[in-house]
């Protein structure tokens, strides 16, 4: 039975290997995306900077998926609307809360509102990612 537990640990280790790097990269790039808006003048340049940073985020996510050797989540037997609804609800709620926070920060009298918003999102985005992934059912927990 030690083999089953060892296999579970090996799968968890393989899955978690890149998680800290991905969370750190998400955090840094999200901060840069927002902070750049306080530093760069001109809407066009800001849009280009934002597009580059978001493309980097997308590229990193794809590399992470591509480099992973395990999918730890349990395959569903079919559509699971209750779980999908729960995850979508949490995701959308999280996004709405972020937008409200960014809106309030931008309306405040701070000299660098986007930098402050970037700091807030640099924490909340990785936290949101962790919260959502923990809601996904893991395979083999009942074996």
């Amino acid at each position, binding site marked *: 039975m030690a083999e089953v537990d060892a*296999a579970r640990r090996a799968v968890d280790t393989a*899955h978690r290997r890149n998680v800290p790097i991905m969370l750190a990269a998400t955090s840094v790039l999200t901060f840069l995306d927002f902070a750049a808006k306080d530093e760069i003048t001109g809407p066009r340049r800001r849009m280009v900077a934002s597009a580059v940073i978001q493309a980097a985020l997308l590229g990193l996510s794809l590399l992470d998926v591509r480099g992973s050797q395990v999918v730890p989540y349990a395959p569903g037997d079919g559509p699971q609307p209750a779980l999908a609804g729960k995850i979508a609800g949490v995701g959308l709620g999280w996004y709405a809360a972020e937008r409200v926070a960014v809106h309030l920060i931008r309306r405040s009298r701070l000299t660098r509102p986007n930098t402050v918003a970037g700091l807030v999102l640099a924490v909340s985005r990785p936290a949101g990612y962790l919260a959502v992934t923990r809601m996904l059912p893991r395979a083999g927990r009942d074996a």
Partner: protein
Amino acid sequence: MPEPGPDTRLVPLLLDPTRLRIAATLVAAGEVEFGFVRDRVGLSDSALSKQLKALATAGLVESWREPTGSARKSWVRLTGDGREQVSAHILALREIAAGGERS
């Protein structure tokens, strides 16, 4: 008192330690890359392919190769029925081991 019969939850194919190691790796994840199983179980590519073929013939696992890309990976997973059988097999082994410890 008659002796109890063999536990019907045990899967004969998984009584082999190598195949049990493969199944234990697969039951711990949804899908696993071929190379990960090979490195964990310590088999060559051909030996693992042979074992997986035996498990696939019994309907316990399924494998596929990524359709595109220059470095296409092969992935393996337990079928729905296979997952149930492996879980039942492991549960039966746990009960046998617990019974052995008690007596």
